[in-house]
């Protein structure tokens, strides 16, 4: 049975913003699944497996919004996979920080902490989107994100109060992650004209930085606050325009998309 794969126009400002949000989730989920089966504790094995599944599902739902309500069933699945796994590397709009390898659990938890804060702030904005389809999905996803937020904040506290060694490791990890996380706030092309994310990606920066800075100061990590107020390092810039690092073009992308690419049109 052959299914026509729907190919929506991905070049509109609306599509570009949706891709940025969905691709952040897809690549975050892909990297989170690294821990499935090998995390340092049972609880975290289960937690990161759940985060992976939820994040990939969020991406899926947003790709469905891109396809539109008229596309359903097999066609919808084919369309979702064509968008999620069928683009060239420069077609992906996620922030470069998402594509970095997990490195170790401290780095993973540091990224998880700031990423979750960005997602919460972004979904809050999207729930007020004038685009009804987007607002509806954002409301649905916000509920799930509550648990990830609690998990991320729990680890923030555990690590900064967990003794000198853990504190030092987490401090170092945040030092690596926070500057690159500013890439979340880069605008996609035409974002000013798009009404679907009120305030746009740049508009999220103040909200996220205010909240994160308060937590960092309370943890005695005052020296890290400046990183959030500084500039995005050049090597982590450009994700929203499709410029990605070797971590994506040479690692995530080939592995994630190979089967889809090698067997065009196949159903799995």
């Amino acid at each position: 049975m052959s299914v026509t794969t729907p190919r929506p126009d991905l070049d509109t400002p609306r599509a570009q913003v949706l891709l940025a949000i969905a691709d952040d989730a897809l690549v975050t989920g892909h990297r989170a699944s690294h821990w499935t089966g090998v995390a340092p504790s049972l609880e975290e094995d289960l937690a990161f497996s759940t985060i992976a599944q939820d994040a990939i599902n969020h991406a899926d739902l947003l790709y469905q919004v891109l396809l539109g309500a008229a596309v359903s069933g097999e066609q919808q699945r084919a369309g979702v996979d064509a968008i999620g796994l069928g683009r060239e590397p420069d077609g992906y709009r996620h922030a470069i920080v998402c594509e970095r390898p997990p490195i170790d659990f401290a780095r993973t938890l540091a990224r998880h902490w700031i990423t979750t804060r960005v997602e919460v702030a972004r979904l809050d904005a999207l729930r007020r989107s004038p685009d009804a389809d987007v607002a509806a999905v954002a409301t649905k996803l916000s509920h799930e994100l509550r648990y990830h937020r609690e998990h991320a904040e729990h680890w923030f506290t555990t690590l900064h109060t967990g003794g000198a060694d853990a504190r030092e490791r987490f401090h170092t990890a945040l030092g690596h992650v926070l500057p690159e996380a500013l890439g979340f706030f880069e605008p996609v092309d035409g974002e000013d004209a798009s009404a679907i994310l009120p305030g746009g990606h740049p508009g999220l920066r103040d909200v996220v930085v205010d909240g994160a800075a308060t937590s960092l100061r309370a943890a005695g990590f005052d020296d890290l606050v400046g990183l959030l107020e500084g500039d995005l390092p050049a090597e982590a810039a450009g994700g929203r325009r499709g410029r990605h690092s070797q971590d994506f073009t040479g690692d995530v992308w080939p592995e994630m998309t190979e089967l889809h690419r090698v067997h065009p049109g196949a159903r799995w």
Partner: protein
Amino acid sequence: MSSTMSPTGPQHDTAGTDPAREAAFLEALDEGAKVESGDWMPDTYRQLNIRFIEMHANSEIMGALPEREWIARAPTLKRKRSLAAKVQDEVGHAHLIYRVAESLGRPRKDMYDDLIAGKGKFHNVFHYPTYSWGDVACIGFLVDGAAIVTQRALLETSYAPYVRVMKRVVAEESLHYRHGEDILLALASGTDEQFEMLQEAVNRWWEPIMHFFGNDIAREDDPSIRWGIKTRTNEESRQEWMSTYVPKLWDLGIETPDPALRYDADAGQWDYTEPDWDRLREIVKGTPTEATASRLYWRQLLHRHHDWIHDIVVGEDLSTAA
């Protein structure tokens, strides 16, 4: 033991080597008695159960590793999620089952440390490399199908804590089986290349699965049966698996690589070519395969890098997670 046998006091009152008590214990097992962790039990019973249950838990962990290699490479977003969910379940099962072995006196940490040090035993089927999405189908359908056959039989095992855990495990495994069947059906009804991918994988997995059930040991010679761990012989399980799964493969046009394989309706059993049992011994007890050595290497590395996490979580090594 349960009400079919009189209470015999705490386990450490008497060493588990009293011949008279042992005879009474065996008699009670024959009558279907169930054993609780605080009951008196012969040393042999304890050790056999630990060995069996530890191997089962180890297998859940090592079974998660070949499949997790495909989460990143899954061909659709739906498969990516469902495979992550399945592997997540396996890790959960390992922990439930380790706790059962722990209730018999073997510390979880020791079992886990032995496993990642390469000293733990686990099922032969998890020693093999994976090459294609066809392997994911075979693990999900054929290997999980075989596991369901042996795990369902464990619902009748004599150690009651094991039975309680297996009730939950078997329920989840049935979902895994459907996940595997779904992947298999998609490949079987897909493009020629997909079908070929599946056929090649079935050819690769055939012998490991025939090995999986173990060689044919007469009921009276199998200590696991004598001591109430297993209720069925290896051959009975293999026959049940063939009756359930071989016709499904044939219906889909998939060839089974054993030319001698056929159902003998008169005898009511399957004829097949005896697999090479020396090869099984080599896989399970010999030098680790390259796939196992590499999986354990990465597991050890990740473990060493995260001692600090275990320390802060509970102030002790929590490393039982796979």
